[in-house]
């Protein structure tokens, strides 16, 4: 009797220790087929991304090196039936730069103001929520819709000074100014985003220190917060500029279809803003097989210059974020 109970106890003890000590698993055993396929797919798609980016870069670089030369950059486009006489794309380059500058110049102050209100005041809270959502809606709004809405606005009679009025009294509604104003909407969310991020990264005690010195909120914003979020603002508006430089729909609708920059009116400087023109994006579009020009070589050359410009702007963003990072004690 006693021997059987002890034996039973022993067996029980052995069973318990076995249960307590889990079976040793080799690390490979826990990877089922499905897991391996998952990891394999992750590797595959990750590498595919690199491959696609590399392919685009190399292809564009090759096309750029073969078609870009000084002549094509430094001559204005001409309308001609002969391909060799259609000139280069000096005017589109100037157009892109001009439009980018106008857009950023309008978007930056407005964007900074909105960002300050959202982060520093934000009252009443529901209104702030709605403004935040509204900015998301602007990000998502197709640029073609913004463009034809802009056309609708700038064709109103009271905005005729910003573009050109035809003889019948119809307002043309297309000009550098109109395109720049709509472009500023495309850049706006980026400025707001960059500025908000910078303002959010400033710790609370910095604001408190300013209040302790007797400054009120408005002057704290002006003297303390704005100067320290300078790099964020710069990042935001540079990203916005890259966005403007790459947008085509607004240009096609709002800048008119003229290849050269054609000034309107007789006030020097302002006449260009009132006039029509083209940008690198519209030049590429017009010269692609989908457009009227159908000169792939020129389209590639202009696309290469455009790509360089956009990459340059993005590099500036990287540089500014790295240099401008403020460390708060």
């Amino acid at each position, binding site marked *: 009797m006693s021997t059987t109970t002890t034996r039973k106890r022993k067996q029980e003890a052995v069973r318990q220790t076995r249960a307590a000590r889990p079976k040793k698993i080799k690390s490979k055993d826990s990877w089922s087929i499905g897991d391996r396929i998952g990891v394999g797919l992750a590797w595959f798609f990750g590498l595919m991304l690199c491959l696609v980016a590399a392919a685009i870069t190399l292809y564009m670089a090759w096309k750029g090196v073969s078609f870009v030369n000084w002549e094509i950059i430094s001559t204005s486009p001409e309308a001609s039936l002969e391909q060799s006489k259609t000139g280069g794309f000096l005017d589109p380059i100037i157009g892109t730069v001009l439009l980018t500058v106008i857009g950023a110049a309008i978007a930056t102050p407005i964007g900074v103001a909105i960002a300050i*209100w959202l982060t520093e005041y934000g009252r009443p809270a529901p209104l702030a929520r709605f403004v935040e959502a509204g900015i998301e809606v602007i990000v998502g709004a197709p640029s*073609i819709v913004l463009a034809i809405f802009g056309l609708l606005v700038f064709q109103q009679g009271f905005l005729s000074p910003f573009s050109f009025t035809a003889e019948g009294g119809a307002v043309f509604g297309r000009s550098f100014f109109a395109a720049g104003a709509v472009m500023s909407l495309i850049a706006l969310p980026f400025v707001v985003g960059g500025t908000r991020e910078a303002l959010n990264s400033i710790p609370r005690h910095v604001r408190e220190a300013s209040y302790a010195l007797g400054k009120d909120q408005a002057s704290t914003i002006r003297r303390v917060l704005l100067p320290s979020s300078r790099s964020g603002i710069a990042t935001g508006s540079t990203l916005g500029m890259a966005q403007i430089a790459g947008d085509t729909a607004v240009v096609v609708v709002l800048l008119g279809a003229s290849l050269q920059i054609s000034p309107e009116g007789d006030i020097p400087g302002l006449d260009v803003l009132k006039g029509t023109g083209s940008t690198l994006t519209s030049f590429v*579009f017009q010269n692609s097989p989908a457009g009227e020009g159908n000169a792939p070589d020129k389209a590639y050359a202009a696309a290469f210059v455009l790509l360089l410009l956009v990459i340059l702007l993005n590099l500036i963003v990287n540089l500014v974020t790295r240099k401008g990072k403020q460390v708060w004690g």
Partner: protein
Amino acid sequence: MDEQYLGIFDESEQASKEEHPTNRRVELMLGALASLVLVFIAGMVIFVFLKGLPSLTGNGISWFGGGGNVDEQLTNIFNSPAEPENYVYELSAFPLLWSTFLISFIAVCFATVISIFSSIFIVEFAPRPLERILEPVVKFLAAIPSVIYGLLGVLVLVPWINDTLITEEMRVSVRYVIQLDGTSVLAGVIILTIMILPIMIAIITDSLRAVPQVWREGALALGVNRWRALRTVSLRAIRPAIVAAAVLATARALGEAIMLAMVTGSIGFAPNPFDGFLFFLEPSRPLAATIIDGAEGLSVEPFGQTMYAFAFILIVSTGLLSFAGWAARKSLSRYSIGAK
């Protein structure tokens, strides 16, 4: 973050209010400027709607239906008589709506799968050097202007599709309906997928990185492998972010105009998925691309009104999608994952 500061600001505000009326004025001015965003959006929707209304009322419900050739109808509208009472509005926009839906939907489906896997790769499995390359790669893909994607599509991808994928048999089988020349739904979908990938990857990697480390360590401590821990813990935690990414990418896809105008063939045709793989190779033209093609005719009154009706459809659908994406991301930040 904002709420956190509120208490302090209220006090300082109380103290300074009597001495500095300027402070109050600054707040009001900035607030008014910010509210202009909402006024602007409301104005845009209303004005575009009013401008497009004659086209919608002129057709009633058949505007959304099929029937007839859209391109012929658009030409008729463009050539309609100059007297307002004789304007032609007859249009059945179904092929354009269908093409918009089809291309965006397929591209977003592809992009969702690819972006989830590649985000997992970037966050968890990529070796250090590769991870460091991938970040600028994603940024680079996001930075390429859509017209360059379109150019590469129309000069590289379209001829390739025309030469390798389309056989002579296919051409003959549909020759009475449509001409196959490489400009196709497939080209549009492939490039659109590449174009919307970066936004999706950015949102998904951000929130994957924000999943608390201890959650995953808990799973790992229970003996599951890295892949399982990621799939069962991290991926489930960020489901709202995946929804947000897909929704925002859809908004982007719906609005893509230039690239699709270049590669999808600019023919108002509704490819039928029941035709098998062939429908991928048929040309088509979504709404946004139609507006680009019609940009020259905007000053012709009834034609312009039709274009504004398209724009109204686009702005309402993308606006709702953006709002939904924003709300989904907000819900995520409540659990402090992906607070951005």
